[in-house]
């Protein structure tokens, strides 16, 4: 861990959260030709990954508002939290996308049969109770 800390200061003390797996990178230099090196991700690449997770958090905020104000069902919340979209969730649930669209409305959610609720709960790795009364906290993992 000590070596990692040193690297942090080298890059101007910028925050580098991803430093536990080294990957292989190629590079080219006109004199030396092609070379490979195994290293941690460079800060620029960390920025663009960070950007994606920022968007996820932002979207979660929006969905939380919609769920608390009664415009979407908790399934919308868990779907967003699992970074899924409707076609993908439809694939996992083996249903048509239109049925999923109906389920993410509060009206459709109320009419869901226990069997389907259980299927959703199993997919998201939670209990049926948690599905009905979601804990709307913004912890991604």
């Amino acid at each position, binding site marked *: 861990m000590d070596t990692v800390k040193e690297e942090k200061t080298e890059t101007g003390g910028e925050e580098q*959260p*991803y430093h*536990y*797996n*080294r*990957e*292989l*990178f*190629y*590079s*080219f*230099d*006109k004199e030396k*030709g*092609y070379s*490979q090196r*195994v290293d941690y991700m460079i800060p*620029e*690449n960390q*920025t*663009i*990954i960070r*950007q*994606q*997770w*920022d*968007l996820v958090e932002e979207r979660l905020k929006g969905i939380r508002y919609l769920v608390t104000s009664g415009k979407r069902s908790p399934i919308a919340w868990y779907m967003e939290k*699992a*970074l*899924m*979209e409707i*076609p*993908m969730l439809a*694939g*996992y649930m083996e249903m048509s996308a239109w049925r999923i669209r109906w389920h993410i409305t509060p009206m459709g959610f109320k009419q869901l049969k226990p069997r389907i609720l259980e299927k959703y709960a199993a997919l998201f790795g939670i209990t049926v109770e948690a599905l009905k009364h979601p804990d709307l906290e913004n912890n991604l*993992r």
Partner: protein
Amino acid sequence: MIKLEFEHRQAGHCENGVTSNLLNYHQYKISEPMVFGIGAGLFFSYLPFMKMQHAPTTTFRVWPGMIFDRLTKELGIQTVILKFRDPRESMTKLNEVLDQGYPVGLQVGTYNLTFFPPEYRMHYNMHNMVVYGYDHETYFVSDTLMEKLVEISYEDLMRVRYAKGTFAPMGRMYYPTYVPKEINLKPAIINGIYKTANNMVGVPFFPLIGVKGIRYLARQMRKWEKKLGPEKASYYLGQVLRMEEEVGTAGAGFRFIYGAFLDEASRVLNQEWLKELSIEMGENANKWREFSYYGSRNCKKRGKADQSYDFLADMLMDCADREEKIFKKLAKIK
């Protein structure tokens, strides 16, 4: 318990690495760039109508699975490629094949991949890895992205093999069974280069593929800030950069690997002009790196553009010109 003697070597790109490592197990040494070049993996397309994580898809490689298919066909290597409807059946088959003594390549989704770095765990179904053994419910995995060998449980493995969404893997597994003793690389390399060049500069009419695709992306990029607003524009740009740098491309959207391949090919074929082109390709790759360096600054400021999109688009146009020159020369290979 089965644990095969499998040599784990890291690689820039998962599918190349898996193919190269699997052949290495069958005593056939082939480098990662060579796999990539013969498999004609280099590609470019910009697909604005296909959204991935809420932004248009840009791809720098051919369809998943194509590199392995093309390479083994070119070299006359016998392979087995399987897909299953039933997850349990696919796992039983996997055990059977491991019992026979073949390490197996698998296409998986990355979201539930437990050993994966958390920041990479998006829904991305084009990842490849090798399973080289099992012990009851635990599977031994060699993943070219990871520094070390890793393990995964039965349930998790089944889940990642049946991830859903675009390019769902459907439990795809593949492994070579027989490698011929004498392999002539020369025609394979020529075919590979020809195919890549054709993909990049030879596709008529369709504007989203190859060099034309890069130019199209550049033209679109100029409009982004006006059309989408600064936040979304920077996210769209970020998506291009993620595809270029992150998803196992070893940097600059495979241009480094391809340059290394041209370098190696010039030695195998004894053609000096390929060496020159490999240097040109390297310089081009460095330009792509520069593009992603400046681009990533735009992504950082969250809305405020550090570099104008016109400046970035000009860089892309420059890359497109360079690549057009290179691939037009490569298309004449004999």
